[in-house]
């Protein structure tokens, strides 16, 4: 026999009356604090403080302690010189790809003196993957896991609900958005918690375009610490502007939902440790091969002259429309494989501050990395094609706008 919903609720009511007794419940300090974190007037300042904490700890641990404190010294002071010394065939193809592409100055082959410039698979590749991205990912996921287990995420969702409604989503979309700041790949799967296809499409597209991943955040913090704030500002503004537009043009519904707010909990260390390990290791299984592969591909393309050719071909677009040097063609190819690698490569190209800012924003909003791409394909090819179409328009439009803003401010 099957019941209809009303009958079911009636049945439940009478069962509950017989088996459940509700004791007296006092409003405790813990509850009162919990309420303050979801009311806008008090919740927003708290959210602002939580973000500050997140960013500050991220920078201190990944940047100051790990990368600048130890890894730069290790890679530039020991690893690079040692490899340059012992690896045979200086100046040859293999050497250039694996160790150091070096530079020709006055017809003389000069070795690079740091791992950003060397471009080799075993030098730049390993340095970016292990020296810069690993610490960033570890600390990012540690803090994310703590926030998750404490139960803060749904509160953030409640706080941001009204704003996200403006772009066709609802508060809960903050979950994929924040996951995406770690890595876009699991975030694409997490969009399944949104109700309609429209919402999923908007979310996936915005993720792929505007949310930089943890690896990229780590490398930006390292190579452009003064500009990263502006890069993020441009990305956040873009997220909302294009979200607003997408909400207008994509057909479909954006239903209201009731966000379930769980109790605050003390995180369990065993769970935190396990989750951190799982996430970091699965991230690295994807990241390291692609970083290394990215180095190989870009180096080979340089050696055969493809990148110079492409740079010249696209020069009018790059220089005229985006206002960045044509040498950015190389990093843009790398960006398709790994964004962190692309930013690292951008950092050694000579350009003005504003050009650097524009170039990094372009790298971020331009094609998602292959892994994300594959994940989106798994969620549906129609959505993927739609996203790519939106992305192409956004890159040109937003890239041009950023150039224009620079011109208006007199800095481009």
């Amino acid at each position, binding site marked *: 026999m099957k019941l209809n919903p009303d009958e079911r609720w009636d049945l439940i009511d009478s069962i509950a009356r017989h088996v459940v007794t509700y004791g007296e419940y006092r409003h405790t300090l813990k509850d009162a604090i919990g309420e303050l974190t979801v009311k806008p007037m008090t919740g927003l300042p708290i959210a602002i403080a939580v973000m500050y904490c997140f960013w500050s700890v991220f920078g201190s641990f990944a940047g100051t302690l790990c990368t600048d404190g130890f890894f730069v010294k290790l890679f530039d002071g020991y690893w690079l010189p040692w490899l340059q010394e012992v690896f045979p065939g200086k100046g040859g193809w293999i050497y250039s790809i694996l160790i150091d592409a070096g530079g020709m100055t006055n017809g003389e082959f000069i070795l690079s003196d740091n791992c950003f410039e060397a471009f080799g698979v075993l030098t730049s590749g390993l340095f970016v993957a292990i020296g810069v991205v690993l610490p960033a990912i570890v600390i990012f996921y540690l803090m994310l896991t703590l926030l998750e287990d404490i139960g803060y995420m*749904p509160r953030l969702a409640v706080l941001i609900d009204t704003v996200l409604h403006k772009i066709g989503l609802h508060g*809960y979309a903050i979950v994929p958005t924040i996951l995406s700041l770690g890595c876009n790949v699991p975030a694409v799967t997490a969009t*399944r*918690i*949104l109700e309609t296809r429209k919402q999923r499409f908007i979310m996936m597209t915005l993720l792929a375009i505007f949310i930089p991943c943890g690896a990229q955040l780590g490398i930006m913090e390292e190579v452009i610490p003064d500009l990263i704030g502006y890069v993020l500002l441009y990305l956040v503004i873009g997220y909302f502007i294009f979200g607003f537009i997408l909400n207008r043009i994509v057909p479909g519904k954006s239903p209201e939902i009731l966000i379930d707010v769980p109790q605050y909990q003390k995180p369990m260390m065993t769970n935190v440790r396990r989750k951190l390990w799982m996430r970091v290791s699965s991230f690295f299984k994807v990241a390291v091969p692609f970083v290394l592969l990215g180095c190989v591909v870009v180096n080979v393309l340089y050696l055969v002259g493809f990148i110079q050719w492409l740079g010249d071909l696209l020069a009018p677009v790059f220089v005229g429309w985006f206002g960045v040097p044509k040498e950015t063609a190389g990093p843009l190819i790398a960006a398709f494989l790994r964004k962190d690698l692309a930013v690292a490569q951008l950092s050694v190209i000579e350009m003005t501050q504003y050009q650097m800012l524009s170039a990094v924003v372009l790298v971020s909003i331009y094609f998602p990395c292959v892994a994300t791409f594959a994940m989106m394909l798994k969620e549906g090819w129609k959505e993927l094609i739609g996203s790519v179409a939106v992305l192409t328009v956004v890159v040109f439009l937003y890239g041009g706008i950023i150039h224009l803003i620079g011109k208006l401010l007199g800095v481009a």
Partner: protein
Amino acid sequence: MKILLMGHPNVGKSVFFNRLTGANVIESNYSGTTVDYTRGYMSLDGKEVEVVDVPGTFSLDPKDRAEEVAVAMLKEAKDAYVICVIDSSKLERGLYLALQIMEEGYSVIIALNMDDVAEDKNIKIDNQKLEQVLGVPVVSTIAIENIGISKVISRLKDAKPVDVEDITVMRAGMNHCGRCGRT
């Protein structure tokens, strides 16, 4: 034999799953952590038994992709045992899904999880009475502390399909007693 872990989002299904199978599915304190199913295996009386961690769903009428997966998993395994995980502090909501699954003819066992939270909130549930009324095994658990999980498994054999009509009759009986004042 196959066991499905079903229930609302954020009630502790993934914790159950990890404890039962030794797997490493992500557990977090918010709804919608699990959006795809995961299979795992545990041994029961020397036999390998398949256990599935199903995404949380509020009802069998799916509202999003994750819930679609959940409902599809249930429909796909007609003869599966279902461990219905319920947040003890929100019994009514949880029972709705449990009843729906029972109506579909599945052998259900109910795990009243987060017993510690219910105790904090001073909510008491009479397990035996609930078991009597529903006709399916009911076990209190605290999954994160590994309390009650083995009891759930040991009572799997008592799970059998129930006709909701019997429950309604039972309820009528209870109401009757209520009206005539004891006996």
